[in-house]
């Protein structure tokens, strides 16, 4: 409903209702030809595509086994039903989530080693815990009341506003650790950044450790590991049911805030608990570190010039040159050669390939052989993003040319032979079949061997002869190490499956196989004697050592050594024969893991964690095809308002597979005795996204509080759009094409519309195109520094229908450029429009951005605006204002705009120069709820005036 109520203002001539395609880049659908089925477990329903029944049965069996067991520590009450679980088998991503509006959980297919155990089991426990957490909110008195009033947004509001993210995720990580023999709580790499930060005396306060300023000593702060440690700390000290009591009262008692509940129950503020927990962990980690005999005979390799955290990772040797991957808080990810002359920058690297090096995942993505560097790139279908793939790509390091060797394959990782002529690639299919493929340099398959079903092989590496492959594997039984003969197809196990260590990054190193393992409690470099199979702890570092590569010319290992400033390259020379005296044989190694969860383990955990997958097969469940009800929509949010002379209500619905959305709005104005109704529909199952909006709305003009004019607007808008997104080299691309038709008319209810306003119904058309591309840079970058986008829109009345002739073309372009210093960003924007029409009254006011600092845009037939922005970091604030607002940092911006317009032969031009202070802040101690107040001051040279402006940008809803 449009309110035009400013006294003294003229009501417009003709009220054009512009339909603009409503398509946004919502690509989260599966391929439309997937046939979906449903399986009803005791507690949840699992939706799955045909062919994934065995996995769906296991998921249901896991949830039926684990949900009741886990409920003892949360007391969630009845599970929120139905809570559909969708097995997104076609995805090739390692993740999962639980969400509301509509409520559902998605399980993505691809395993990863960071789970430390069988993928679907860990996912079922982690996401199952989130379903329980959400059920607590739904079952609480306030949540139940809000649900009646607002639908799922009611309990959702409680979760966002009152449950800290660190609790939601930390609680789930603790459960996944307790109820399996793996889980992130058992893995040394999970605590790597926080442990290093703590032991090097850099402890942040609670708010910064949780929310971060965006410019922290680490590349990013993680609420996952912080939450795991805090939740474990509270349960160790205050009992297993501590959070059941805290949540039962959060939002439902006088001490309604989560942190107040903790204070109320313990007498100690949450911020102090954080310090106590870190003190406790500090003692444990320090004792662990004190037990290490550090390896000292190491050579420090040079690092690129750096300021702040920088990770440097060795990828492999070509002669005496080492290819490295670097990523820092001030440096964008890139590949660089290191030789005696120092570093030579080679090319940019995509952040999605770099993440497994920088984060706790610590998996190897790149493989170097000859003059080729190869990797597996996760690529989603450009339209249906839930169908994703792992494709082989190789870069010729001489020419720089990148070649994609596969299309829509499900590869996990790849190893290149030393001469670059052969590739050994590991794959994981939609139905969890696992294989090793031997390919020639063009990517053509020469041989294929099956590996165990549902296993996760990773970090492959080929020996100097090109005939043997070594790789790590994760299964339900744990991590193992294997060698594969690429000629005979025979495999033998070098290290049997175990949950006692995470085995990663194996490489051949002359007589040895070097790898990284946290057997001792910290990830260190180990050596396995290829002839005897004996294992030795060879290199010990204080925090963690990863990604060994072998330098054959100097018979040494080069690896990444983690420290407070990031990851540095160290070299360790191997003995020409025999072993070094300071190596420790496996049997002699002092095992000193910090398993903070261990006091919480009980027999129930152990019993369920030991149940094998075959014991949890879920054979008893019935399978049925997905019926119309599941494809259809279910209301997830609604609301009603009554105010003054009117009432209004809304209902929103979307189906679980995200293919259909429906919005309904209705109101009734008692003064006018008139009603409005709007129906908005979007269908996203097929390539084009179809939109339809039907509306009959009342509008009014108020003068001095009295209705001077009221009219009804009837409207039909139909749109069709095609959103696409894809990755190329190191950039992300997004494209949206859309077109639509609309019809609109107005009729007077009170007062009289002018002839122009009311005379004719209008039939309108619209075409639009938006394209954007950009790449993530350094962690501290203020905004994208490599970026451009353009947007074009054509609108007009349909020709050959008796109505005013009108059309408009608008275009915008933006270019993001690096600033003058690291992390600074510049942006140049150009926008313009051209309107033409048979009647001046149909011209529309510009909705393109004008020169900043002015109140109204210049209306125009032809016009353009040129704007230049510059944004730079100023300082870290790190200031909590009560517990509800956390001020993160200050950034400074400068702008220079000029705007030109021509209207009925009259030209106008104006400009502004401005400066803006940005101050992003977290609201309600929520990581994703960020408000950015902006204070701007503009100088307007034509009028020699100043204009001040305050604005707020909200994100995270």
């Amino acid at each position, binding site marked *: *409903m*449009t*309110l035009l109520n*400013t006294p003294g203002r003229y009501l*417009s001539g003709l009220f054009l*209702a*512009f339909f603009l395609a*409503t398509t*946004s*880049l919502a690509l989260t659908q599966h391929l439309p030809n997937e046939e979906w089925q449903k399986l009803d477990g005791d507690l949840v329903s699992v939706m799955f595509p045909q062919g994934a029944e065995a996995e769906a049965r296991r998921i249901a069996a896991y949830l039926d086994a684990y949900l009741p067991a886990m409920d003892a520590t949360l007391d969630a009450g009845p599970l929120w039903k139905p809570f559909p679980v969708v097995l997104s088998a076609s995805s090739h991503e*390692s*993740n*999962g*989530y*639980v*969400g509301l*509006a509509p409520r559902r959980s998605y399980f993505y297919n691809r395993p990863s080693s960071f789970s430390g155990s069988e993928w679907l089991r860990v996912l079922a426990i*982690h996401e199952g815990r989130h379903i329980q*957490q959400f059920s607590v909110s739904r079952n609480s008195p306030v949540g139940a009341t809000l649900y009646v009033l*607002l639908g799922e*947004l009611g309990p959702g509001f409680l979760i966002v506003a009152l449950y800290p993210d660190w609790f939601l*995720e930390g609680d789930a990580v603790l459960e996944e650790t307790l109820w399996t023999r793996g889980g992130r709580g058992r893995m040394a790499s999970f605590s790597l950044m926080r442990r290093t930060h703590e032991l090097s005396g850099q402890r942040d306060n609670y708010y910064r450790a949780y929310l971060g300023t965006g410019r922290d000593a680490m*590349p*990013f702060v993680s609420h*996952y590991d912080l939450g795991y440690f805090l939740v474990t700390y509270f349960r160790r000290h205050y009992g297993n049911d501590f959070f059941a009591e805290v949540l039962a009262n959060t939002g439902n008692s006088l001490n309604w805030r989560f942190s107040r509940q903790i204070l109320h129950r313990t007498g100690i503020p949450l911020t102090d608990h954080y310090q106590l927990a870190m003190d406790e962990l500090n003692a444990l980690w320090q004792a662990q570190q004190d037990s290490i005999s550090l390896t000292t005979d190491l050579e420090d390799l040079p690092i690129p010039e750096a300021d702040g955290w920088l990770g440097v990772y060795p990828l492999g040797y070509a002669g005496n040159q080492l290819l490295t991957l670097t990523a820092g808080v001030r440096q964008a990810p890139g590949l660089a050669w290191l030789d005696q002359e120092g570093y030579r920058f080679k090319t940019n690297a995509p952040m*999605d390939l770099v*993440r497994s090096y*920088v*984060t706790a995942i610590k998996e190897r993505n790149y493989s170097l052989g000859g003059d080729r560097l190869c990797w597996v790139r996760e690529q989603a279908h450009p339209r249906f993003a839930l169908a994703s793939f792992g494709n082989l790509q190789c870069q010729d390091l001489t020419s720089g040319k990148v070649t994609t060797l596969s299309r829509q394959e499900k590869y996990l990782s790849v190893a290149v032979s030393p001469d670059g002529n052969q590739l050994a690639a590991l794959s994981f299919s939609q139905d969890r079949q696992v294989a090793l493929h031997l390919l020639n340099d063009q990517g053509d398959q020469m041989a294929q061997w099956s590996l165990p079903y549902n296993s996760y092989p990773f970090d492959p590496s080929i020996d100097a002869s090109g005939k043997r492959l070594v790789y790590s594997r994760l299964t339900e039984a744990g991590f193992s190490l294997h060698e594969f003969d690429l000629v005979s197809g025979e495999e033998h196990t070098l290290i049997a499956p175990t949950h006692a260590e995470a085995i990663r990054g194996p490489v051949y190193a002359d007589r040895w196989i070097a790898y990284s393992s946290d057997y001792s409690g910290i990830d260190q470099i180990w050596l396995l004697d290829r002839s005897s199979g004996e294992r030795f702890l060879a290199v010990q570092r204080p925090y963690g050592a990863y990604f060994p590569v072998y330098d054959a010319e100097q018979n040494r290992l080069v690896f990444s050594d983690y420290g407070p400033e990031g990851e540095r390259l160290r070299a360790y020379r191997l003995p020409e024969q025999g072993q070094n005296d300071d190596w420790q044989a496996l049997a002699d190694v002092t095992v000193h893991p910090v398993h903070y969860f261990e006091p919480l383990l009980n027999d129930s955990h152990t019993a369920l964690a030991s149940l094998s997958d075959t014991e949890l097969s879920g054979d008893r469940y019935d399978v049925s095809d997905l019926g119309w009800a599941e494809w259809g929509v279910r209301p997830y*949010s609604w*609301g009603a308002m009554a*105010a*003054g*002379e*009117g009432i*209004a209500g809304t209902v929103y619905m979307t189906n679980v597979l995200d293919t259909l959305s429906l919005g309904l*709005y209705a109101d009734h104005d008692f003064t006018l005795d008139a009603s409005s109704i*709007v129906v*908005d529909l979007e269908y996203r199952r097929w390539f084009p996204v179809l939109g339809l909006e039907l509306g009959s709305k009342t509008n009014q003009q108020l003068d001095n*509080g009295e209705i001077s004019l009221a009219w009804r607007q009837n409207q039909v808008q139909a749109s069709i759009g095609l959103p696409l997104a894809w990755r190329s080299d190191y950039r*992300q691309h997004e494209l949206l094409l859309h077109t639509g038709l609309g019809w609109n008319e107005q009729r007077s209810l009170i007062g009289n519309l002018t002839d122009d306003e009311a005379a004719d119904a209008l039939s309108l058309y619209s075409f639009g195109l938006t394209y*954007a*591309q*950009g790449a*993530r840079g350094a962690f501290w970058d203020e*905004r994208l520094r490599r*970026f451009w*986008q353009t947007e074009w829109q054509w609108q007009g009345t349909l020709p050959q229908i008796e109505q005013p002739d009108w059309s408009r073309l608008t275009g915008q372009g933006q270019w993001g450029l690096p600033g003058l210093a690291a992390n600074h960003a510049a942006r140049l924007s150009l926008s313009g429009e051209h309107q033409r029409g048979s009647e001046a009254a149909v011209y*529309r*006011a510009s*909705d393109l951005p004008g020169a900043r600092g002015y*109140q109204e845009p210049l209306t125009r037939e032809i016009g353009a605006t040129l704007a230049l922005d510059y944004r730079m970091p100023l300082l870290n604030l790190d200031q909590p204002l009560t517990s509800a607002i956390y001020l993160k940092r200050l950034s400074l911006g400068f702008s220079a705009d000029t705007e030109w317009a021509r209207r009925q032969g009259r030209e106008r031009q104006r400009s502004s120069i401005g400066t803006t202070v940005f101050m992003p802040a977290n609201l309600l101690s929520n990581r994703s709820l960020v408000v950015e107040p902006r204070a701007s001051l503009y100088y307007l040279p034509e009028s020699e005036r100043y204009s*001040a*402006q*305050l604005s*707020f*940008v*909200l*994100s995270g*809803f």
Partner: protein
Amino acid sequence: MEGEFNSDGIVVAEEIELRETDTELEGKVSEVNDAKPSLNVGGVRVVVSNSTYRVKPTKIGPDLSTQRME
């Protein structure tokens, strides 16, 4: 509100940042007579005016309201 299995803070922001679609609420210090304060609550825009308020569904894209050119 979503509970994820893995969020490392690196990749998630990439798609969002390409298109700056955050909700902006503006209140201008100078020339405030034209400001129409509004809030966006769960997809429902609550528009506050001098004497009354209404709700209407909103979506990505420019507002449908129009006005006469000066």
